[in-house]
């Protein structure tokens, strides 16, 4: 039955995504459109719903442990949610071929990001004075409290707007833009950046998802099995992650995403090598 295929798509997307630190959205949309024949808007809507579920699940721990910077997240969320809303409205107006083409380009960029992201390192400066948006958390691996300040807020707001726009337009979380921006441009420690981005993604995805839901583009037949699969996949992945070499997995996923990127670009011109 097709619903079980959707559960499996969710399981694989959630599992692989969580293992390499990406939301499942980048895998869900191409998998649903290229392998299951789901219309791209329904696939994007299902992906947004699944992204909200995984973001909430991840954020529970990050927020409780104090890694997520809620005040910074909410401040950036002003521009991110506006971006998400505009992305949702744009997606509703664009045709299938254009959406496929944009998704293909985005997948290529994410693939590149996966290959270079290990070079992104902490650039924060320890500061006793946190300022209005700075934060602190206890890092068990360092055995001490980390205090940091936030710099270049306007850059963060601009990048967040772009991330939100891509989220609403393509049904992905946008963490691949937010996390490097928070670390490199804004000087946030890696752990706080990942946690804050996870906290934000659910709210951002909502801004886009409301457009899709109220316009009847959320198909429960697709969205519910995918969401259940993604949540289970992310949970299983969190158990398996310590035993898996994430470096090799990241390279494999980057190659798969590059292949999907090429196919999505071809789909923009009506060519489908996968036969759906």
């Amino acid at each position, binding site marked *: 039955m097709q*619903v079980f295929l959707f559960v499996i798509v969710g399981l694989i997307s959630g599992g692989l995504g969580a293992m390499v630190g990406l939301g499942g959205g980048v895998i869900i949309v191409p998998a649903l459109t290229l392998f299951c024949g789901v219309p791209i808007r329904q696939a994007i809507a299902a992906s947004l719903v699944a992204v909200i*579920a995984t973001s909430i699940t991840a*954020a529970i721990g990050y927020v*409780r442990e104090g890694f997520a910077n809620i005040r910074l997240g909410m401040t950036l969320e002003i521009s991110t*949610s506006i971006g998400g809303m505009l992305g949702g409205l744009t997606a509703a107006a664009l045709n299938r071929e254009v959406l496929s083409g944009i998704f293909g380009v985005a997948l290529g960029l994410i693939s590149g990001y996966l290959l270079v992201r290990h070079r992104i390192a902490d650039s924060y400066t320890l500061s006793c004075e946190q300022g209005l948006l700075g934060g602190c958390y206890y890092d068990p691996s360092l055995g001490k409290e980390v205090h940091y300040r936030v710099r270049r807020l306007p850059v963060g707001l601009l990048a967040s707007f772009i991330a939100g726009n891509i989220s609403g337009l393509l049904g992905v979380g946008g963490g691949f833009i937010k996390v490097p921006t928070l670390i490199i441009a804004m000087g946030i420690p890696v752990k706080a950046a990942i946690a804050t981005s996870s906290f934000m993604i659910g709210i951002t995805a909502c801004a886009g998802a*409301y457009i899709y839901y109220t316009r009847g583009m959320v198909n429960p*037949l697709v969205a519910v099995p995918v969401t259940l699969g993604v949540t289970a996949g992310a949970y299983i992945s969190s158990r398996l992650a310590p035993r898996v070499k994430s470096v090799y997995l990241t390279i494999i996923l980057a190659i798969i995403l590059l292949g999907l990127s090429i196919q999505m670009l071809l789909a923009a011109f009506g060519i489908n090598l996968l036969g759906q």
Partner: protein
Amino acid sequence: MQKGKADEELNIIVSRVLLVGISLVISLMSISFFLSLLRPVSLPTSTISLADFPSALSQGRPEAFLNLSLVILLITPSLCVTVLLVEFVRRRQWLFAIIALTVLAVLALSATLGVRG
């Protein structure tokens, strides 16, 4: 109250809201998904309008519970922002209260534009 202690309290409140929301969603989704599979009727392919919700729920239709789980999932992040707004107001952190209110306004605008489109 010290800032560190106050922030810890805020973190716990927000994480509890998210935990309750997602637990409810996953339970409802799982139950209604498997009930739908057991029944001879197929899963719904479109969402139920909010006006039809009460009657569909009172009839115990699995698709109503599936849709309800989707609605709860979609409102959980907004509920989280609402809780933050209340907490910032309670702590007299007016700047962050305005920020939370702005985010809520954008989310409300998004739903409104979706309905009007």
